[in-house]
């Protein structure tokens, strides 16, 4: 009798525990404290964000919850988080195309302090009179080279070019002459190739299918005087400078550390490690790559020897071309959050880019080149690549190439183009087919946005 009673009690308790566990996940209490929920795009600085969130809470009492999406999963994570009760109040969109996807969630930021202090207001993403995205960091990319190695090459007695300094190189032809002769002399220079591996592994090919493609399309759209507010202008592309893309891509492939048939399994970290270990002299990447160079163990490159060269592709007037500088990081505030939460989010980013403490965090910890007039000349990050980008931006006679790749129709388009480029590198696809597929892919993806 006693035993049966005990058994019943046990069973009932077990059921209660189970039911409790089930309901517990459904009804987590909402906190009444005013919070900013930020979905961060850059995993490499997630810790720095959390540290500054703690500082902000100490100073103002407003809680900032920073959540970070893993590499290449921002859109997925955002789509998931947005559907929850704890949706981010502050997030980011990657440009006009990203805005198209998140239109229903982007509040008008026209009256925010941060927008008023944006140095170049044309950089913001607008929809009619509304301002929906504020760029918060400026980044640049180009061909990064190791001056120690190029100097070593330029000092060779039997070099085949009459270039005395890398500063003289200002066209594709000159770059090609230098690179090809360097490749011939690779043994004397102690390198395996001039360029780091052309990383073509799926998910690792953005340097080519996005960044490099930006350069010929910049020339195409500039010559065609395309109106960037007219989305119809981007339903198709001509890829009129496709041959020039091929020029530079071939140069990368043929003068590389890695045989071009093997690039399909190379990653960006492989490339950056090769550069850091002086197995190569050049690599195409942006200023964010500094941490990837610095943190490679056994790294030989000296910070003082890092220099940028624009990506010359053989276009007309390219001696005035600069680095590709822009951003795909735009703050957006969730329009579906409450008014108080929206204001809290706007206050947080304004604090970050205007207060002494906030600015210090931005330049020193986050390492951002901030595009706001609240920052003075000397408030720039201390890393050598960011300094190089600033040096190129300051050159009067040079025209910076904007980041037009925010107009690319979809991730799918980029992936497909990357896959095509890989087959071309392996010699199983003709260049004509690469161009044809790329144009068709653009049209197909652009039409789906509607």
């Amino acid at each position, binding site marked *: 009798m006693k035993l049966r009673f005990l058994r019943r009690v046990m*069973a*009932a308790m077990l*059921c209660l525990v*189970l*039911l409790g566990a*089930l309901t517990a996940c*459904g009804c987590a209490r909402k906190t009444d404290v005013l919070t900013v929920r930020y979905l961060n795009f850059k995993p490499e600085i997630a810790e720095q964000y959390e540290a500054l969130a703690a500082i902000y809470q100490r100073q103002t009492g407003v809680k900032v919850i920073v959540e970070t999406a893993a590499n290449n999963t921002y*859109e*997925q994570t955002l*789509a998931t988080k*947005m*559907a929850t009760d704890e949706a981010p109040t502050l997030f980011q969109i990657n440009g006009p*195309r990203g805005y*198209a*996807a*998140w239109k*229903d969630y982007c509040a008008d930021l026209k009256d925010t302090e941060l927008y008023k202090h944006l140095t170049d207001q044309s950089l913001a993403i607008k929809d009619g009179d509304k301002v929906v995205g504020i760029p918060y960091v400026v980044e640049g990319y180009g061909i990064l080279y190791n001056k120690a190695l190029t100097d070593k090459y330029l000092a060779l007695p039997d070099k085949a070019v009459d270039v005395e300094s890398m500063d003289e190189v200002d066209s594709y032809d000159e770059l090609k002459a230098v690179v090809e002769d360097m490749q011939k002399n690779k043994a004397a220079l102690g390198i395996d190739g001039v360029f780091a591996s052309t990383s*073509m*592994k*799926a*998910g690792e090919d953005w340097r080519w299918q996005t960044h490099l493609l930006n350069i010929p399309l910049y020339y195409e759209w500039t010559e065609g005087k395309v109106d960037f507010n007219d989305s119809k202008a981007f339903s198709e592309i001509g890829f009129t400078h496709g041959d020039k893309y091929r020029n530079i891509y071939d140069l990368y492939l043929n003068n590389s550390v890695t*045989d071009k*048939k*093997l690039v*399909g*399994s190379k990653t960006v970290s492989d490339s950056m490690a090769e550069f850091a270990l002086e197995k190569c002299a050049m690599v195409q990447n942006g200023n964010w790559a500094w941490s990837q160079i610095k943190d490679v163990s056994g790294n030989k490159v000296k910070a003082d020897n890092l220099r940028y060269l624009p990506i010359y592709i053989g276009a007309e007037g390219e001696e005035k071309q600069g680095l590709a500088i822009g951003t795909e990081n735009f703050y957006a505030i969730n329009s579906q959050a409450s008014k108080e939460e929206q204001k809290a989010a706007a206050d947080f980013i304004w604090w970050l880019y205007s207060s002494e403490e906030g600015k210090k965090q931005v330049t020193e910890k986050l390492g951002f080149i901030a595009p706001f007039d609240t920052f003075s000349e000397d408030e720039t990050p201390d890393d050598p690549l960011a300094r190089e980008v600033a040096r190129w931006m300051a050159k009067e006679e040079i025209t910076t190439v904007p980041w037009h790749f925010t107009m690319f*129709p*979809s*991730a*799918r388009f980029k*992936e*497909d183009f990357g*896959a*095509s480029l*890989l*087959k071309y590198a*392996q010699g*199983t696809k003709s260049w004509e087919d690469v161009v044809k597929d790329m144009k068709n892919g653009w049209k197909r*993806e652009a039409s*789906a*946005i*509607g």
Partner: protein
Amino acid sequence: MYKRFYRWFPVFVLPTLAAFTVAFLIPFVMGIWLSFHRFTTIKNTHFVGWENYTRAFADEGFMGSLRFSALFTVVSLITVNLLAFVLALALTRRLRGVNLFRGIFFMPNLIGGIVLGYVFSLLVNGLLGFWGVDITYAATYGFWGLVALNTWQLTGYMMVIYIAGLQNVPSSLVEAAAIDGAGAFSTLWHVKLPLVMPSITICTFLTLTNSFKMFDQNLALTAGAPERQTQGLALDIYNTFYGRIGWQGVGQAKAVLFFLLVAAVAGIQLWLTRRREVDA
């Protein structure tokens, strides 16, 4: 008896039922509902009717992935089950260290798909390196790479099920067959095979559904390279959903079609193999 049963019914069934509803039924119904909508997040949807389904069928990637998955599943069914059965036969004999071998063959099953895919990419690329290429060079390399991976991973698990089946074959029947003059092959074909038919049903079902649904191994080993030619259905659905703005609904429609397909194929397979099951 029944009275008691009814009294305790809610206590034992409700928790499980609730969990099943929350974690399976609701998402499932919502998924079907979403496949008729255009949406970015599931809170903000617009009804579009059958449009997502027509777009799914018009999408080349979907048909290509379907062919790839179907072929992959057929090949895996054969390699996994043949190898697993042979291993089970070998490891039901009286050998030294049988348990050790069983353990070793089972182990690959305990490793996660992403890790396995990564390890196999190193192996396959190392091998193909002798010819100066890598796994992304041709779709056939990726295909056979995946078959090898899948076989290596699933064989041990299926082997365990076959071993259990073979051990349940009554020794009296085997002895009777021997007395009647049956050789090793005849015993296997006419006595053991019909009796392990239930194991075959389970193993073919598991291999079939697992191979069709394969995702992480696919992502880690080839990610579809070259040009999505080695992209299975699950990976295609994922890429449609997340890689293309305005395609989320189509991805959802593909997922519903995927479910119907796997359910139908598995149903037919179960019916076919069940018919051949006999009692000892």
